[in-house]
């Protein structure tokens, strides 16, 4: 379906009024030209058994299960590769078809081991089901079956049992066509054909888990799910993944109140059925022993367990005490990891406590007003038919993998020209028509220059060190795509650069070419939290706080029974900078870790150290929570229901499936209790639906969003009340020191943060941090791969192993933000702080600077 609808040719033929009439088993149906027989049959309500055909992949007719009888045609054509023609009459259940189906199944089972009782797929296996439905019942094969070593590990996450494989080509096609990582292939031939990787090169694809779901037998199984349960044990709910801001639809399956498996749901709008491995396998942290189970308060310097009443009283007292010193003595950070309801409660608490110093992003995103109000905003599905795509943001493959798949599909399958503006080559580079590699931190200048060039403003030289020929080529592409719905994807390119004007420049470019903007954020519900008002300049619904006495402000004040503070609030960087100066009396952190998850670690540590009172709402005892005065255990993904908002502004539901550990509560509940203790009014909410209703009443933007409309995979797209209109953009000049290397600090898919570090599945994956350098820089430094060097940054020194990588341009160094950098030559003298917290890349970064540069020094070789 995707095949035919997506391609331009198919669209043309769609336009023609001609429709084909096909009769399948006596049912006549009308289909588009180009529709495959198997799809037409599904439309007519006839199921044709199949193994190799997959609606999202090219048909190959390998399994021969879908053979059907077509009148006036010789032989039995496979329904999965036969396009419909007019007046076609098809039979799917004549004696001859049945006989063929029996034979095909008998042959498929000739080598299939029938270890169904042991197999993880047993009970939900298409081969099992179809053998029961269409099989011969008895096999004539008495010979020994072929044998292979039982399961071999294709990667850290996927096991392969070649005995069970029926060679349908689904996994290999997926790896090649969809994921673009053809790391598995058929090897040998004839009876010995099997699927394998290259020797000693594991199937390290970020999308490897999809092959398990696509496998029609139990040949591919998941390491984390191996023998954990059988299909009939599992209960499931449909929910939205909480690993990144794409918001893929998932099925969450649990048994005995433990989440055991996550499967993808085919949502045309968002993920088309695919998931990244982090989304699929990154749930084990839910049941980790380290989960917080009870509230804690600090007594005599020690955090001790307390009752909820005591902890809530202590937190409310601390906040009230600090609030007496004015709005800037308070700081509220976080909210982007929880549901929109909880974020709304957080934003409300901040405003009730009297401050606008609230931010859901931890200084690692773009302007909140741009993220919620980007205009005209693109949807993910717009990418399929865009005239061009400009990507100016993080490495989508590492941070938003399923969006990467969609962009890749648009470029590769639909031929959409892709322009990549990135400080280094990314996963998308090989599909890009042009890769505008430029100096880190100057992406905004480049976008503005592109916008100018599109409006016939000649540039003598492209800014930011981009190549002139590439720039020229990019200008040609975007000029061609003018007014034809080109999409500009804009996000923070790295954590070592501030990218202050990126949102404005992206909007400028989109305006110049009459295109759309798709802003991207990092954490799962960043958009939801911003829409709920977790930003200093936004109110719930995405209306601008500064716009004064507009309708939305009045509605909110009516709903809250309180005036909304009108001072100019500070964002995360502002709050943390002030806190580091000792000017903040109380910090409330909701799923916000200022030490391990904030771009500027030294500043974060300083802020934590100098703030008098800290409330941490979290699921683990993060280094920040360990320094807090009150700690609340929170329910998280899969444990609390609510809605989330993805990068498009699509509101979908997250559904609770398992019970949270101990007395953990959804954040909105404890925030309501805190609000009530601070405002002196009784707590209002007994369920997340109460929160949702209050939010919908308070924020006009949510008026369209009803509980019924966000049910299901499609959800509802919410639009901010105030759209983003950038002022005149000024790009501050950025000085470059020739002797330094500019830092590119992106996130990797697998890090060792609080959450993914606690997923057993990812532990086996190597997440050691290395600095990547261009080969010319390597030879200039005279170091080889694996050698440790010292990066001298503005904030700290970091010893880290280096690796040659020519995707990093000369003069830059790429370091992974979310991995621990412990080099073999770590200096024992510096243990003071680093013994407590392993050295991270965030130690290097000065978040107040526009760009960060480091000097690279070779270490003296140990004698």
């Amino acid at each position, binding site marked *: 379906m995707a095949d035919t609808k997506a391609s331009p040719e198919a669209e043309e033929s769609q336009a023609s009024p001609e429709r084909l009439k096909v009769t399948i088993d006596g049912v006549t149906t009308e289909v588009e030209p180009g529709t495959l027989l198997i799809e037409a049959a599904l439309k007519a309500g006839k199921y044709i058994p199949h193994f190799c055909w997959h609606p999202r992949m090219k048909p190959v007719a390998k399994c021969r299960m879908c053979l059907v009888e077509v009148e006036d045609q010789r032989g039995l054509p496979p329904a999965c590769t036969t396009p419909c023609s007019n007046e076609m009459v098809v039979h799917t259940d004549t004696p001859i078809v049945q006989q063929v189906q029996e034979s095909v199944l008998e042959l498929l089972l000739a080598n299939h*081991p*029938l*270890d169904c*009782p*042991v197999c993880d797929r*047993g*009970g939900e296996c298409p081969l099992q089901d179809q053998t029961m439905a269409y099989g011969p019942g008895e096999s004539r094969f*008495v*010979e*020994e*079956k072929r044998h292979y070593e*039982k*399961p071999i590990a294709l990667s850290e996450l996927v096991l392969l049992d070649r005995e069970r494989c029926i060679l349908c080509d689904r996994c290999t096609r997926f790896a090649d066509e969809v994921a673009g990582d053809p790391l598995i292939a058929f090897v040998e031939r004839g009876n010995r054909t099997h699927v394998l990787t290259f020797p000693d090169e594991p199937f390290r694809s970020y999308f490897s888990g999809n092959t398990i779901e696509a496998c029609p037998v139990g040949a591919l199984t998941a390491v984390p799910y*191996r*023998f*954990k*349960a*059988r299909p*009939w*044990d599992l209960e499931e709910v449909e929910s939205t993944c909480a690993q990144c801001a794409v918001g893929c639809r998932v099925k969450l399956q649990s048994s005995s109140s433990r989440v055991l498996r996550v499967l993808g749901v085919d949502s045309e709008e968002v993920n088309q059925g695919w998931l990244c491995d982090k989304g699929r396998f990154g749930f084990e942290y839910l049941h980790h022993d380290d989960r917080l189970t009870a509230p804690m308060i600090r007594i005599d310097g020690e955090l001790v367990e307390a009752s909820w009443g005591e902890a809530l009283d202590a937190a409310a007292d601390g906040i009230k005490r600090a609030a007496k010193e004015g709005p800037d003595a308070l700081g509220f950070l976080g909210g982007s990891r929880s549901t929109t309801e909880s974020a709304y409660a957080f934003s409300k608490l901040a405003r009730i406590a009297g401050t606008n110093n609230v931010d859901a992003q931890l200084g690692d995103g773009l302007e909140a007003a741009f993220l919620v109000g980007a205009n005209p905003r693109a949807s993910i599905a717009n990418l399929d038919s865009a005239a061009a795509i400009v990507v100016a943001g993080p490495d989508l493959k590492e941070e938003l993998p399923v969006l990467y798949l969609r962009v890749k599909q648009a470029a590769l399958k639909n031929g959409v020209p892709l322009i990549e503006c990135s400080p280094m080559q990314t996963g998308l580079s090989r599909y890009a028509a042009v890769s505008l590699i430029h100096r880190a931190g100057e992406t905004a200048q480049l976008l503005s220059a592109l916008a100018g060039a599109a409006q016939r403003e000649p540039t003598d030289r492209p800014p930011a060190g981009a190549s002139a020929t590439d720039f020229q080529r990019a200008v040609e592409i975007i000029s061609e795509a003018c007014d034809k719905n080109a999409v500009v994807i804009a996000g923070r390119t790295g954590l070592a650069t501030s990218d202050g004007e990126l949102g404005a420049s992206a909007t400028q470019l989109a305006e110049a070419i009459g295109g759309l903007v798709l802003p991207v954020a990092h954490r799962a519900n960043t958009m939801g939290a911003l829409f709920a008002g977790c930003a200093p300049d936004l109110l719930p619904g995405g209306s601008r706080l500064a716009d004064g006495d507009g309708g939305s402000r009045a509605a909110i004040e009516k709903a809250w029974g309180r005036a909304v503070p009108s001072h100019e609030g500070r964002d995360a960087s502002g709050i943390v900078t002030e806190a580091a100066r000792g000017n903040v009396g109380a910090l409330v952190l909701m799923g916000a870790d200022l030490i391990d998850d904030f771009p500027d670690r030294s500043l974060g540590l300083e802020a934590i150290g100098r703030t008098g009172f800290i409330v941490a709402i979290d699921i683990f005892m993060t280094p920040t929570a360990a320094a807090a005065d009150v700690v609340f255990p929170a329910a998280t993904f899969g444990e609390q229901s609510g809605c989330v908002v993805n990068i498009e502004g699509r509101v979908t539901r997250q559904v609770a499936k398992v019970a949270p550990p101990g007395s953990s509560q959804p954040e909105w509940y404890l925030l309501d209790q805190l609000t009530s203790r601070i405002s002196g009014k009784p707590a209002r909410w007994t369920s997340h639906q109460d929160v949702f209703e209050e939010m919908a009443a308070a924020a006009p933007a949510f008026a369209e969003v009803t509980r019924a409309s966000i049910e299901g995979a499609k959800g509802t797209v919410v639009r901010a009340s105030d759209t983003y209109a950038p002022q005149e953009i000024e790009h501050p000049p950025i000085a470059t020191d020739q002797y330094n290397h500019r830092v590119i600090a992106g996130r990797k898919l697998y890090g060792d943060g609080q959450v993914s570090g606690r997923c057993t599945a990812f532990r086996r994956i190597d997440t050691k941090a290395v600095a990547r350098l261009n080969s010319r820089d390597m030879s200039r430094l005279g170091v080889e791969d694996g050698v440790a060097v010292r990066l001298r940054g503005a904030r700290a020194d970091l010893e880290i192993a280096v690796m040659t990588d020519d995707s990093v341009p000369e003069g830059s160094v790429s370091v992974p933000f979310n991995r621990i950098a412990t080099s073999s030559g770590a200096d024992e003298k510096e243990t003071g702080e680093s013994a407590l917290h392993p050295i991270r890349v965030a130690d290097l970064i000065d978040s107040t600077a526009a760009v960060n540069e480091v000097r690279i020094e070779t270490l003296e070789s140990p004698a």
Partner: protein
Amino acid sequence: MGKFSGFAVTLRHMFRKPVTTQYPKEVREKPVRFHGRHVLNRYPDGMEKCIGCELCAAVCPAKCIYVRGKDNPPGNPVSPGERYGYVYEINLLRCIFCGLCVEACPTTAITMSNMFEFSVTDRNQAIFTKEHLLVGEDGKPNRKLGVEADVTADALEEAGGWMRATAPGGNANFKEEVLWSPEAGVGTRLPEGVADNHPRDIGADTRSPEGRVEQ
């Protein structure tokens, strides 16, 4: 008929030998298809037959069985193949002794013995775990529960015969040599490598085509 005719039956029975047996001093012989409490069997080499497939739990109409499988430790496997029954629990208060679990079991790991005396003093004791259910290396059921201590060794010799009543594949003409010892727990398996015309115990090795019964 006189007025005493109504007592005829009563009178007749007064002079008959009573049918009551002096249980528990006298133990009656159980029929071969008696549905007593379950046992989990082993192969003669001591390997457990249960592979943790949970089919028994799936088919159980009373939902009284809880099973969880696990990877066999490669160095010291518990059962043949990849998977073994890591947790096995039966709540005998819920069990209706229908025997569907026995029929569902692909390896004849679970069978029913003729043991029926398992009164308990606490509901929790009625949940039999793998430790209780699994037969010992000698093939004798574990009688750790004090209440079962009175079961005589002879009484155990009677179980196991009934399960062959159901032919694999539902073939009514199926006649298999019962390679099943009358003793509860242990099936007889011919040694590896012996060329034989004997169909093996069906559960002997699920991967081997030789175990199949040809008709």
